[in-house]
């Protein structure tokens, strides 16, 4: 899916973000490699969404840096993001996808075939002509994933994509995420759902109160968290 050079690894160094005088993210450093599914894990308010947005370039850090191995527009267009509440344009399902393709400069003749292929991938062929905003919550999130799929990203950010979905819809979304992984798209997903993290993660970034407390192999993290907060979170104890 990637061109000659790769976006990855992504190097994040001493990243901090402040809003209204409050430090919401502090001294976060890590490196993301291709091929492994990274899950940002932590309780609500840990700074997961913030970190995703900083990596994706939707927010500008107060200090520190986010350095992709490719810079500029080539970098931005090879990333995609799926939000907790999918942003559905006031168009049909297929219209939502062809809009994204048009925004990426895909030739007019190629848009519809690619859009329909993406819908098929997400199991949404039947609702292609339906207004996106009339789809169910699960269908909307699958459409958001199909829209990302169509643009063939090298890196896909997901911000709690299943937090408002029922188990069946969650399973459908996770299957699609598997599809991205199989197509060599780097998955970077935020979740507070421990079970989901266990299902998906190859690597864990464990955030708590704006700090990165643990990072590394998921199995190790779940078996032997090295911090007190990590241990409490894995044990399912409430953590504030």
């Amino acid at each position, binding site marked *: 899916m990637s061109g000659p050079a790769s976006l990855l690894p992504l190097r994040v160094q001493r990243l901090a973000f402040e809003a209204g005088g409050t430090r919401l993210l502090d001294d976060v450093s890590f490196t993301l490699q291709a091929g492994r599914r990274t899950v940002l894990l932590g309780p609500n308010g840990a700074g997961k969404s913030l970190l995703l*947005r900083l990596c*994706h*370039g*939707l927010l500008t850090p107060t200090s520190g840096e986010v350095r992709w191995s490719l810079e500029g*527009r080539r970098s*931005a*267009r090879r*990333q*995609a*993001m799926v*939000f907790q509440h999918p*942003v559905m*344009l*006031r*168009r049909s399902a297929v219209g939502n996808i062809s*809009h*994204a393709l*048009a*925004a*990426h400069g895909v030739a007019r003749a190629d848009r519809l075939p690619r859009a329909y292929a993406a819908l098929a991938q997400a199991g949404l062929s039947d609702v292609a002509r339906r*207004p*996106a*905003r*009339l789809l169910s919550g699960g269908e909307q999130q699958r459409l958001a994933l199909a829209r990302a799929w169509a*643009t063939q990203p090298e890196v896909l950010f997901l911000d709690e994509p299943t937090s408002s979905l029922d188990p069946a819809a969650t399973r459908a979304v996770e299957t699609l995420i598997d599809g991205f992984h199989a197509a060599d798209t780097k998955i970077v997903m935020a979740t507070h759902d421990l079970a989901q993290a266990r299902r998906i993660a190859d690597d864990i970034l464990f955030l708590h109160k704006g700090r990165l407390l643990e990072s590394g192999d998921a199995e190790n993290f779940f078996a032997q968290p090295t911090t007190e907060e990590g241990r409490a979170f894995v044990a399912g104890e409430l953590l504030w």
Partner: protein
Amino acid sequence: METFVTAFSEAGALLVSFDRDFLSIVGLSLRVSLSAVALACLIGFPLGAFVALARFPGRGFVILLLNTFMGLPPVVVGLIVFLVLSRAGPLGVLGLLFTPAAMIIAQTILVTPIVAALTRQIVADLWVEYGEHLRSLDAGPVTTLTTLIMDARYSLTTVVLAGFGRAIAEVGAVMIVGGNIDHATRVMTTAIALETSQGNLSTALGLGIVLLLLALTVNAAVQIINTSAGKRAALA
């Protein structure tokens, strides 16, 4: 009371008579106001969307101006356009004064701030919802602008109607730059003013009723289009 009764019968008579003079007045009213609204939208939609999205020094002042200009007095606009288009004025050579073109120009100036100011608000609200997605897509400024205007299209029809209401109802500007010349620049509002000043109150009121019916028809047409199309596209 008698005036009202006569007025309604006059209005009815005007409507069924298909009087040639009357029809030409109605036709010119529609032509001038619809052209002005079309031009105002052509300028106001992108302008409003631009002001909603762009960050530049003096932006607050521009918004203040747009909001203020929503209430531009038509006679003042008429006067300024008159001065600009009069023979001694900067655009006098065009010979536009006392033509429908001058009336269209004046009404465009009146309607554009309304379209731009309301568009700015609507687009700004939609940006709150669409912003992150469009930025995530790395959409350029033109794509962003057209996406927001396109997706706000149902809200924007209300803006068009507000502009049309302003244009079709105003008398001050078209009176000054058009001159209310029979068979040339006479529109419904200037005809009403004339009939009133000549004491033909029932004729004036009859024309007024027809003007209201006209506005009603245009609004109803838009509403019907909007409801059926709106359901399909789920604007909610």
